[in-house]
């Protein structure tokens, strides 16, 4: 069946909930529910942290959206966003063994969004924010991260940035470039590129060596709309002030001598021109991540002189995809019962992914693992979990090896159960 609407109609949605505790006799009811269940509630009342041991909270997250920027569809609202959130929840289970509840919410303002999610905190071990328009998504993420005692993650920001960094680490090794010395063009100033600038700076790239380009051209500290940005888009404003030490004002000048371009802009082809790539530094690295068509086709980028090209597509080499990051990140934060997820933890995820690819042997056409290299997920999960321990953010302190084994067992268990689903449905 190739039709997604027919598929959704046939299965009537993508996920459902099944109990974990077997019921074999009438007496079981008094244990799983009243009166026995009161003992469990009392234990949690005395020590709320016990909710991570005695309920499913330890493995459950919410996938929350307000439907304001869904995939490439834009503002389609929470009801129409549900299929996407269900799909995401399925990926969480299949790739990370995480129980994810799709939760599109009908809210009007950022503050209303925040108060709804805050009220949900007690039921979940983590929050995955999804498909929220910019710049509201930055405000919501910052506020919730400061208010909640569980990890809050915005996949369009941190997941994409983490995958980009993973690929970039290996691309830099292959081309013998040094992060501290490299000039980076960020083409597009949406959620993922803004988060990427922040994560790259934390990793060791210099903000003054980056140039961010939006629909009006390069950002710089004296651009005509700078004060407008200060009032309406604080995050873009901060980057306008701190990046572009070259003070270049034209796109071609931004590309001139650049080592890396990371594009998260509009679907191409030819959004990024060959002539721009041709003025980049020797051994240029081009990440053209728009879907379905990259901003510049890999062949064109290579003809213009690029050494390594990555896209968001699985049918080209080097697919940079946040699906490599988010399931394992949540596996890791849930296994360590982390109180938050920080940029340092994202970087450890990127490093683990990059190292996994290096062990297999990196080359121009393989800088990042593919989505079906399952062992990569255990590596990323254990890297995240042990980083949480190192940063003092974990409630569960274990070694990296222990976390790797736990992640592996839980992901394999999920895949085994999904295997049963296949058997049942095909019977």
């Amino acid at each position, binding site marked *: 069946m190739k039709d997604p609407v027919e598929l959704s109609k046939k299965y009537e949605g993508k996920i459902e909930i099944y109990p974990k505790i077997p019921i074999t006799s009438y007496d079981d009811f008094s244990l799983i529910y009243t009166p026995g269940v009161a003992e469990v509630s009392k234990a949690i009342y005395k020590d709320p942290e016990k909710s991570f041991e005695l309920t499913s909270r330890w493995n459950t997250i919410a996938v929350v959206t307000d439907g304001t920027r869904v995939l490439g569809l834009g503002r389609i609202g929470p009801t129409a966003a549900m299929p996407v959130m269900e799909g995401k929840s399925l990926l969480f289970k299949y790739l990370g063994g995480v129980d994810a509840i799709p939760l599109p919410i009908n809210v009007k303002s950022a503050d209303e969004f925040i108060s709804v999610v805050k009220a949900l905190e007690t039921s979940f071990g983590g929050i995955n924010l999804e498909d929220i328009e910019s710049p509201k998504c930055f405000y919501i993420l910052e506020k919730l991260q400061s208010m909640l005692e569980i990890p809050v993650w915005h996949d369009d920001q941190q997941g994409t940035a983490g995958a980009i960094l993973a690929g970039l680490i290996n691309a830099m090794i292959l081309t013998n470039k040094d992060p501290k010395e490299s000039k980076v063009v960020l083409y597009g100033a949406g959620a993922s590129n803004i988060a990427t600038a922040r994560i790259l700076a934390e990793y060791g790239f210099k903000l003054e060596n980056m140039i961010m380009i939006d629909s009006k051209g390069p950002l710089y*500290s004296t651009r005509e709309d*700078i*004060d*407008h940005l200060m*009032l309406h888009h604080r995050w873009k404003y901060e980057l*306008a002030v701190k990046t572009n030490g070259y003070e270049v004002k034209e796109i071609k000048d931004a590309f001139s001598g650049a080592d890396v371009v990371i594009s998260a802009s509009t679907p191409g082809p030819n959004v990024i021109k060959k002539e721009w790539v041709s003025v980049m530094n020797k051994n240029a690295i081009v990440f053209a991540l728009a879907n379905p068509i990259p901003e510049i086709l890999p062949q064109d980028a290579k003809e213009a002189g690029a050494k390594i090209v990555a896209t968001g597509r699985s049918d080209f080499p080097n697919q940079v995809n946040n699906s490599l990051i988010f399931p394992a990140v949540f596996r890791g934060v849930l296994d360590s019962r982390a109180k938050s997820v920080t940029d340092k933890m994202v970087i450890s995820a990127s490093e683990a992914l990059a190292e996994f690819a290096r062990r297999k042997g990196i080359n121009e056409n393989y800088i990042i693992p593919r989505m079906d290299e399952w062992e990569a997920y255990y590596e990323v999960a254990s890297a995240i979990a042990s980083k949480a321990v190192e940063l003092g953010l974990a409630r569960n302190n274990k070694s990296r090896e222990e976390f790797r084994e736990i992640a592996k067992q839980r992901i394999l268990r999920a895949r085994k159960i999904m295997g049963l689903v296949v058997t049942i449905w095909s019977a």
Partner: protein
Amino acid sequence: MVSIRLAKKEDTKNIVDFFSRMYRLNSEFDPLLNNPENLEERVSKSVDKSLENPDEIIVVAEDNGKIVGTARVIVHERSFYFPDREAIIEEFYVHPAYRRQGVGKDIISFIEEELEKRGIQLLSANFPSRNVIASSFYKKMGFREIHSKYVKRIY
């Protein structure tokens, strides 16, 4: 190292750019503060006059010869109050890359010293009520509200 000094004729171009940016920023706060099309031209004329008027002071912040901030105060008579003269900050703008580094504070200190030399005891600031960035800055500098201005468009 940023230093503050009185403006000179050759600073005019930068001052006009900065003041114009400030007036455009003001227009973001309130539709009653819309700018005319020839804003720069008007600001330029007014800055030229200011530089010759002893009752107006323009100061600039400079970093290695580059203007990175500027402000203008205009001295007014207060016929019914004492002290009888008050300087009002009408424009204040710091280059975005130099914000949150104490440049604004240094500009205010320089203005205060300059007014003291001239025997002026009162300094106030004029800015859109809805500009919370400005109101928090002036509060931090020790200013407080004294008058309110209510505006109504008649037609």
